[in-house]
């Protein structure tokens, strides 16, 4: 789709830059995946080589599947990530709707207060969170993780969604009011479908740090029953000996679920059924 004003050289350079960036981004992922299929000696001797007949080995995957309850870890990660995303999107959208739709005293202040969370890392409050969870008896439960991640994801979600909701036509909401839709119906049936691309963006931004997090699972839910994938992979990393095959295999496996979620959300991002609703 190069416009006539673009010279082939310029287009070429742009593509070169994009290809270079793609390679840099994919390199660690590819390295992890190819090495997960090699023997331990081959990993260290030629880390860049593809697995050949002599170096191919499934030992990493065998270890991962045998040792520990890896399916359980995946399930934990999945539950925590999905429930957190759902809660972040639901509460984030609700807060964003009230901030953008209704005039009330302290609206701006409340919006700022909710946005401050973007700038202050939630980990600063780890000690207090841990104390709170202990007091509430939630240590070693997935609920603890879900609560923390929901809190962590909300500020950005509210910030992005309220900006998007401001762009939804007032006329459309008023038409709904005149047609007898309740405020809830206006929120769920008119506004949410229209901000779906923004919801997908928020979902992606929320999901990745949660899936990859090691900090809170380690502190709040290190028990065998509540281990997440990232935490589960850590058992192969020892102080003196690290089972690299197993670590790489576990990480390779951990990429796929998050990739699938990403594909689902990014399709939503692109889809534009809302075009032409209002001029």
């Amino acid at each position, binding site marked *: 789709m190069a416009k006539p004003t673009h010279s082939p050289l310029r287009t070429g350079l742009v593509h070169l830059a994009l290809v270079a960036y793609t390679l840099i981004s994919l390199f660690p992922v590819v390295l992890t995946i190819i090495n997960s299929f090699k023997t331990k000696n081959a990993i260290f001797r030629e880390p860049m080589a593809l697995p050949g007949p002599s170096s191919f080995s499934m030992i990493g995957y065998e270890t991962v599947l045998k040792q520990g309850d890896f399916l359980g870890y995946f399930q934990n990660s999945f539950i925590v990530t999905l429930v957190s995303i759902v809660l972040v999107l639901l509460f984030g959208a609700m807060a964003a709707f009230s901030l953008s739709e209704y005039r009330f005293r302290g609206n701006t202040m409340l919006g700022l207060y909710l946005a401050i969370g973007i700038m202050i890392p939630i980990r600063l409050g780890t000690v207090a969170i841990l104390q709170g969870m202990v007091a509430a008896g939630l240590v070693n439960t997935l609920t603890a993780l879900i609560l923390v991640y929901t809190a962590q994801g909300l500020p950005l979600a509210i910030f992005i969604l309220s900006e998007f909701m401001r762009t939804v*036509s007032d*006329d*459309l909401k*008023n*038409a*709904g*009011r*005149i*047609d*007898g*839709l309740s405020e809830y119906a206006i929120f769920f*049936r*008119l506004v949410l*479908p*229209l901000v779906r691309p923004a919801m997908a963006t928020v979902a992606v931004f929320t999901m990745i740090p949660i899936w990859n997090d090691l900090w809170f699972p380690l502190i709040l839910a290190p028990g065998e029953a509540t281990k997440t994938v990232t935490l589960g992979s850590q058992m192969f990393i020892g102080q003196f000996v690290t089972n690299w095959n197993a670590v790489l295999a576990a990480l390779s496996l951990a990429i796929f679920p998050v990739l699938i979620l990403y594909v689902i959300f990014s399709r939503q991002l692109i889809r534009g*059924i*809302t*075009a*032409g*609703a*209002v*001029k």
Partner: protein
Amino acid sequence: MGSLQVNSVRKAFGNHEVLKGIDLDVKDGEFVIFVGPSGCGKSTLLRVIAGLEDATAGSIRIDGQEVGAVPPAKRGIAMVFQSYALYPHLTVKDNMGLGLKQAGTPKVEIEKRVARASAMLSLEPYLARRPAELSGGQRQRVAIGRAIVREPKLFLFDEPLSNLDAALRVQTRLEIARLHRELKATMIYVTHDQVEAMTLADKIVVLSAGAVEQVGSPMELYNRPANLFVAGFIGSPAMNLIDAERLGEAGAKTIGIRPEHVSLSRESGEWQGKVVHVEHLGADTIVYLESEKAGLLTVRLFGEHRYAPDDIVYASPDSASIHRFDANGKAIR
């Protein structure tokens, strides 16, 4: 079927008063148009009548019933918006039927009403389409259809033609006029376009800065403007307003004369002037001239006339059509 009384309605946003005590009486079946410059409060007044904004003070009665505490959906109104405001995820048919569905109307009845409305607006071929698959004019017809289907006591139009191009605007204007005749419904229409106001209305309400300047039929406003604001606002090109002192007229502060009530001559006349600019429109020729006595004048001549900039001409007002205004801007009659 649908009358409306508005009594000393006020609306303030914080300390800013947008409506400063509006009184209005709309009879059943009337087509009333609110017209005024942007920011005059006409849309706010419409939204207060619709119940989308609460009035700060005053009362609104539809069909004699006080509706101050009644939600929009229960007021028996339907509204057509400038931006169409169609539900993007619903088909044309569902867009039109949603209001009735929410009110619990039986399915058969909804089908019947949607069919009737879509026949009126020739929308039948599009019933299964989504708004995104329609052109601007079709979308606005769907929005009008959505209003008709509800069989409301009051139709409210909020600048419904502003987003349409010129040709479509004329066509839709005729359609709205036809609908008003067929439905015999009470309609309230907001616009900043005085041509729409003059062509559609039974009664025009001219608003300025949150207050009613004058209420009357289009011809009343044109022939007997109550004050300077209405005189300058109604009529296109705008009325020439001349300082009475310059003309040596006693008993008035400002003299008003419409461009079409001034005649031009190359030989003789009351005001000598030099042509500044000429607009040839075919049916009319509009001549702008700078006169010594009356200042900048606009003259509208019917038919084609060969005037060019820098011509020296004489303008004479038709003395029967002169409007006089006092120091407060009120018309002297």
